[in-house]
């Protein structure tokens, strides 16, 4: 639709003639919207159809005419949806109000990026944007966990100790063995291992031990020699939509652990990285799968599709 055509479209709610009449959403409206399944319960007592027309009208006002007031009205109208979605994540240790603010950013992005020509409802488009922003917030928070330097150093030392002990013992070491070899107590070892959770979101481009020098090559280089193995990987491992979002080595590691039954130490030896890196990659992959296919309430389940990873 051209701008000229658009200008000929009749204002469905006659708001153009009465700008600024749409009132703000109240707590009662939110309650009503929530009980009726979302923000399509309209703020002006009209039915669902009118509400959708209002959405479309406001979106056109904003996108075609640059009407900032229309944008703000849309944001206000859809805040109950943000609150409703944020509430689902409120049990994960973050303040509800913070989640609403983060979700509102997703809403604003959805409104700003909305494509009028695609013929979808704003609810449909905004929901994954809001949820995505909230999930990103949780993921980014993982980066900000501060680990005391002493534990970081022990963590790095353990990385090396495990690599030395596994071939020497021909098995995975115990906590007591690690403590003895690292000159630490079992409690310190457990605490240091727990800190590796803080690196859950470690970048594949980041150094695996956080140091410079020749070890600053990044995980991606440690994993580079496994291409042939990936290609021989059984297709069944990669049949799922969630898996399709993982890179080859992540799929390969999950395949080895859960379909082939290898232990983390065995995978570390096979892939040529440390057991602690395997542990992080598995956790990270499961987290990504959960995010990718979990949708709003679904479990971390990967259902088959016909995707061919090769």
């Amino acid at each position, binding site marked *: 639709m051209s701008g000229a055509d658009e200008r000929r479209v009749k204002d469905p709610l006659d708001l153009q003639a009465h700008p600024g009449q749409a009132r703000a959403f109240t707590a009662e409206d939110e309650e009503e919207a929530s009980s009726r399944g979302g923000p399509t319960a309209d703020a002006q007592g009209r039915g669902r159809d009118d509400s959708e027309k209002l959405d479309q009208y406001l979106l056109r006002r904003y996108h075609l005419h640059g009407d900032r007031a229309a944008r703000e009205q849309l944001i206000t109208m859809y805040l109950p949806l943000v609150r409703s979605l944020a509430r689902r994540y409120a*049990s994960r240790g973050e303040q509800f109000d913070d989640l609403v603010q983060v979700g509102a950013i997703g809403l604003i992005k959805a409104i700003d990026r909305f494509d009028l020509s695609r013929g979808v409802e704003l609810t449909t488009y905004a929901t994954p944007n809001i949820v995505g922003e909230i999930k990103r917030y949780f993921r980014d928070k993982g980066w900000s966990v501060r680990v005391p330097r002493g534990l970081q150093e022990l963590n790095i030392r353990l990385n090396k100790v*495990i690599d030395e002990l596994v071939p020497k013992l021909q098995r*995975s070491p*115990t906590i007591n063995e690690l403590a003895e070899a690292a000159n630490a107590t*079992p409690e310190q070892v457990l605490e240091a291992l727990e800190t590796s959770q803080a690196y859950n979101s470690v970048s594949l481009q980041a150094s695996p031990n956080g140091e410079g020098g020749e070890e600053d090559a990044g995980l991606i280089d440690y994993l580079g020699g496994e291409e042939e193995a990936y290609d021989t990987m059984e297709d*069944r491992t990669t049949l799922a939509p969630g898996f399709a979002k993982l890179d080859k080595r992540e799929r390969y590691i999950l395949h080895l652990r859960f379909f082939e039954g290898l232990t983390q130490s065995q995978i570390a030896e096979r892939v040529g990285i440390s057991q602690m890196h395997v542990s992080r990659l598995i956790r990270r992959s499961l987290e990504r799968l959960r995010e990718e296919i979990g949708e709003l309430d679904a479990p*971390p*389940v*990967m259902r088959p599709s016909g995707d061919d990873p090769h």
Partner: protein
Amino acid sequence: MAERIDLEVPATLNALSTVRMVLGGLGARLDFSLDDLEDIYLATGELLRTALDADSLDRLSVEVVLDDDVLRFSAGTFTSAKLRADVIRHAEDCLDLCMLLRRTVDDVRLEDKDGAFRVVLVKRRRGGPA
């Protein structure tokens, strides 16, 4: 002689770290290998994350029993039919919660009581020092 530890923690993701530390300490006492401990961490972590998403809980009850070379973990009390199904139902060739649990612990059970249930995971020591 079996030793039992009971925990009650807030039903939030933040509390999982506490549960992990307790499991790690107890697993270390049984001389579990690092691989076995990682399996327990993965199994309990995925189970509890799924449970927190599926069930509306304020508090989470965790029980850990050490018996000889066996660690028995139990969490609840849940009412979600979806969680129940996720724990026991496996779709072939899919890495779902059920499969993940089966691949990381030796036994998975549901214990029903008064219309609710607890999930029990059993891990035996293996691969450690003789």
